């Protein structure tokens, strides 16, 4: 049966990740970094990947990983979401790693698992599992073309590129041109990858690897969205207990209490949906439906939580110095990442036999 709780080990993992992020990713630091030319926090990434070994959670021990499951990865993503940490964890330790697990490339897996290399799947962040991804052209054994919307490509050492022959190719970052795009979410920036006659090593078939990687990402993204939404709710409740207007704490006004209570209810639902998805990915049971349910539910809730947080913070919520905008941007970008809620509902309609007219 689906286990929707957190184990003691998972709680211990959460505490360790939260501690580390408290040291590395405080909000003013994250905001300052977004204004620099290097938005990624590679020191935090090194501490997570190398220091704690978290980049290899999904990789079996004999391949240099931790041999853990999606349930533990989900807990890490909750904390990364709670801190809007600008690290390539979802892209490298989840998406690229999962694609490599399908292809069985042990050498690259080992490098990603140890954190010695950062990987990125060269598929637009918006792509839903099962959707057709844009491919590079294979001509005379080299890759050509321009792939846009590639998350964290700016810090990737290796890009996994789907090509028009149906293959997935490993390409070193040195061989391509990565041009940053101006991204809505400053903490998970996108880039255009230009391939101009680049040599690549075919590591397997693209379709199953990309599908599996994106399904896992969609399911676990719900946990990141839970972290974002939970931060927004917790922080807003804290602020509304403190902030006084009309000689009363603002949080004592019923109109606002009801909004927060309603939001709490939705976040409780998000937590159950995210846990169910993580468990389904770990056990392989009922995975497609559970992932689609989690994504269809999580995106609107996370966006609403951050939108409510902004509104209820009043003027301060509208400023650059208050971190709520980082969360709003992440939540909105996440609502498009790995397929919109509507795309997942359409998938669900097929899976549970509720056909469209």
């Amino acid at each position, binding site marked *: 049966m*689906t*286990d*929707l*709780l957190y184990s003691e080990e998972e709680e211990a993992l959460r505490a360790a990740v939260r501690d580390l992020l408290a040291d590395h990713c405080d909000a003013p630091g994250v905001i300052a970094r977004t204004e620099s030319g290097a938005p990624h926090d590679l020191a935090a990434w090194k501490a997570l990947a190398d220091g704690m070994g978290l980049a290899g959670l999904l990789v079996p021990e004999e391949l240099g990983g931790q041999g853990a499951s999606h349930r533990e990865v989900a807990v890490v993503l909750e904390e990364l979401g709670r801190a809007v940490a600008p690290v390539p964890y979802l892209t490298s330790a989840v998406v690229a790693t999962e694609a490599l697990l399908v292809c069985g490339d042990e050498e690259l897996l080992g490098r990603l698992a140890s954190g010695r290399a950062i990987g990125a799947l060269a598929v637009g962040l918006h792509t839903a599992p099962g959707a057709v991804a844009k491919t590079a052209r294979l001509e005379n054994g080299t890759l050509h073309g321009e792939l846009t919307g590639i998350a964290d490509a700016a810090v990737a050492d290796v890009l996994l590129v789907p090509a028009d022959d149906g293959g997935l190719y490993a390409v070193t970052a040195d061989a391509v041109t990565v041009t940053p795009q101006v991204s809505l979410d400053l903490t998970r920036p996108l880039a255009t990858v230009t391939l101009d006659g680049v040599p690549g090593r075919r590591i397997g078939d693209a379709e199953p690897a990309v599908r599996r990687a994106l399904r896992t990402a969609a399911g676990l993204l719900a946990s990141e969205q839970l972290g974002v939404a939970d931060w927004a709710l917790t922080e807003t*409740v804290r602020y*509304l*207990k403190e902030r006084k207007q009309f000689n*009363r*704490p603002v*949080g*004592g006004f*019923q109109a606002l*209490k*009801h909004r*927060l*209570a*309603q939001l*709490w*209810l939705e976040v*409780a*639902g*998000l*937590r*159950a*949906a995210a*846990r*169910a998805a993580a468990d389904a990915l770990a056990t392989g049971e009922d995975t497609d439906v559970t992932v689609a*349910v989690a994504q*269809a*539910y999580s995106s609107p809730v996370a966006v609403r939580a951050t939108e409510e947080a902004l509104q209820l913070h009043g003027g301060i919520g509208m400023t650059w110095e208050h971190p709520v905008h980082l969360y709003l941007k992440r939540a909105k970008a996440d609502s498009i990442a790995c397929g919109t809620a509507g795309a997942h*509902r*359409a998938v*669900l*309609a097929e899976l*549970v*036999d*509720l*056909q*469209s*007219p």
Partner: protein
Amino acid sequence: MTDAAELRRRTQELLAAHPPATTDRLDFLRARFDAGLAWVHYPEGLGGLGAPRHLQAVVDAELEAAGAPDNDARRNGIGLGMAAPTILKYGTEEQKQRYLRPLWTGEEVWCQLFSEPGAGSDLAALGTRAVPDGDDWVVNGQKVWTSGAHNARWAILIARTDPSVPKHAGITYFLCDMTDPGVDVRPLRQITGEAEFNEVFLSDVRIPDSCRLGEVGNGWRVAQTTLNNERVAIGGMRLPREGGMIGPVAKTWRERPELRTHDLHQRLLKLWVESEVSRLTAERLRQQLVAGQPGYEGSGMKLAFARLNQEISGLEVELRGQEGLLYDDWTLRRPELVDFTGRDAGYRYLRSKGNSIEGGTSEVLLNIVAERVLGLPAEPRTDKDVAWKDLAR
């Protein structure tokens, strides 16, 4: 400590001594109670064995497999869900012995005389008076929204015993015999056409002091036990996927392709997802309870349940189009139990409107979540320290 194996053994003993095929239904239920297998988490001698609550499932599975009769719990929801835990917590030894067994077997059905025309969400404002007279209390007042009063043998009742103190302090909790002279139950016809609720008029009803539950003036605290159990009961159901209100509408959708429209499809999928998430949230709450780490999700389950029931049943009436203009039957009926998903779509739509009112309105429940779960400041209270008799009415 009673474990699953021990419970299985005791259940088999019960079945051997009272074979369901040849034992009278009521005799079997009484024997089950006496064997401590009625509600295993209750104390010994009161239908239980002091075992962990979740082990009840072990007993139920064995009995079901053997074809044993059950106590038709839905017929006495208020008795089982609310009266029993309150009597267990506050009753005297005599009261527990007298009431719990026939309550559990269903021989005596219970109702709840709490709400009044002037005291609904502000329940502590109630005005029904109980005045001492010798060894009795004499009760006068009017109660309302009393589900099942027409089938009930007993009622849990709260009444004002001291109007000179602030409203929460002057209330006492009683067990009221519904067959007593002066108890007048009148059907209250609802928007569905049926009369599942009642008004209950109490005129010089004499309640012996031995039917008082808890101390004089402590009735509000006793009632909290009842009300907390009410919300747990409402949120604690375990359902399979599509087990709730979404089931009938999904079935209609699959069977009647000619009714489908794009707009309804989007709304149906959204509600299907929300129903599934609500089911997962309830399941997570149940797992937390079993693991001994109770969460707060129960406070919110009823809110989600009410909203979903209303949206889904509303959608189904629309989906049925021309048929949605019709209703199955407006005949006045007096149902024995509430069936939210029974009858047709129109009935479900109308009945579900009560889900956000009964057992605490959604507005009050949102306040409770905001204050007790999120710790936000309480509403300003102007009535807290004023004697009840001095409150403006």
